[in-house]
């Protein structure tokens, strides 16, 4: 089993080397004439004001939060789906109950208006 993962491990290394190589080649052959205007932050030609940080909506966090919860719950269902042949009908119903509880969270977030982008 570890053999197959050796392939993945090597793939991670190679997959990183392949895009890194042109960037490295690029680093050695490109012209380099930096000046402060060129390297200025590009914000539609308007000079940048203040620091980069702006006040973000809490909405971003809510989406990531709902995603996290769904993500974790889905993880539980994957082994359940793989074992599907060996499951009794009742065990399938347990899985469906699990999904329904998951759905209740979505309904709550929806009713609360937390999913609105405003």
């Amino acid at each position, binding site marked *: 089993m570890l053999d197959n993962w050796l392939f993945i491990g090597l793939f991670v290394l190679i997959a990183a080397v392949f895009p890194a190589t042109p960037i490295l080649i690029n680093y050695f052959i490109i012209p380099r004439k930096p000046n402060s205007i060129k390297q200025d932050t590009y914000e539609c030609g308007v000079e940048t004001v203040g620091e980069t940080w702006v006040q973000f909506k809490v909405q971003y966090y809510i989406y990531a939060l709902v*995603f996290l919860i769904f993500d974790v719950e889905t993880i539980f269902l994957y082994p359940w789906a793989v074992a599907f042949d060996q499951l009794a009908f009742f065990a399938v119903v347990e899985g469906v109950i699990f*999904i329904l509880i998951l759905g209740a969270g979505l309904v709550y977030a929806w009713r609360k208006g937390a999913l609105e982008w405003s």
Partner: protein
Amino acid sequence: MEIWDQLGEWLANLIKTILGALNLPLDWNIVVLKLIGVVTVATFGLLLVILLTWIERKVAARFQDRFGPNRAGPFGLLQAIADMIKLITKEDITPSGADKIAFNIAPILGVVSVLLIWAVIPFSSVWFGTEINVGVLYIAAVGSFGVISILMAGWSSNNKYALLGAFRSVAQLVSYEVPLFLTLLVPVLLGRTMGVNGIVKAQDTWFVILAPLPALIFFISSLAEIGRTPFDLLEAESEIVAGFHIEYSGMKYAMFMAGEFLHAFTIAVLTAILFFGGWQGPGAAEFPLLGLIYLFAKSFVFYFLVIWIRTTLPRVRIDHMLAFNWKFLTPLSLVLLMVTALLEKAFEADALRIPVLFGANLLVLIITVQILRIVSKRQQRELKTFEPRPVAVPPPAEEVSA
């Protein structure tokens, strides 16, 4: 087809002989063999990008009544090479105040996240990079590196638009990952395995027949994952300049684009594999090369669809896009998952299994359309209760002259 098998065998024997001559310990032989496989698959993936850029530009041009690239080489085939030469000799600008390390790692990570998917793709019955038993989850997992790369790129650029673009992209990506993961579960459930090749082997009847709606949802949310029109809010050049990669130039920018092109083709391949039988087809089990041809024929159909959608649909508004995901795709995929699980168990090993599952999908579709119709009627009624909008008044004459 015999010739191809013999050629492969001959090559494998040749490599083994060379390795034997080098007198390496046994583990290292395995490592070198794997390494050759890895380099083959990864090179294939990256060479594909060159072809894909050409195809995409050519097809998109036809949709827009243009010729597309037609100067460099026959049919403009060398255009991609010319672009590469241009990009590799371009000056690379790192914005002042950027976080150098994160800024440089982000594009590499972006390509890695897409390229890694190719490690588990079965090209035919016997040709695949590797077969791991958690293949589907692996595909979902490596996608998260892409999200991290976007956040790194946006944050390290030290640019308000880049950061804002990154935040928007990530909100979109993580949102659409929910229906994506839920519909990925359907082929796993129907095939009883998470191995990608196992899922292909299980498709004596294509899963799109058993689960047409999950296939559609998978395709739509994958479209959102690659961030192209109609879901290209990550770029949305008219709203937030260019999104998270605004400060990138030269080769690093090219890496983001390469990742995007490859990702677009990868989702086409994944759709073909998970729902349309992958390399399955008449005679594919005996002749591996035929399987490869089937897979790529199916994939290019979906790739064409991706380009078609890209060139014809307008961009959706961000609130509509997120509402479409959370209030339509996610509940629908939850319902479909439950329906599929219950019916699959109830009609296990029953001749009625295929018509029942297909019929259930149809029923869900009809109910969904009815609900949508009711909701949209109610919304229209609510709209009518508003006061009529003021008619545009022509400006006074003196202002026009000024």
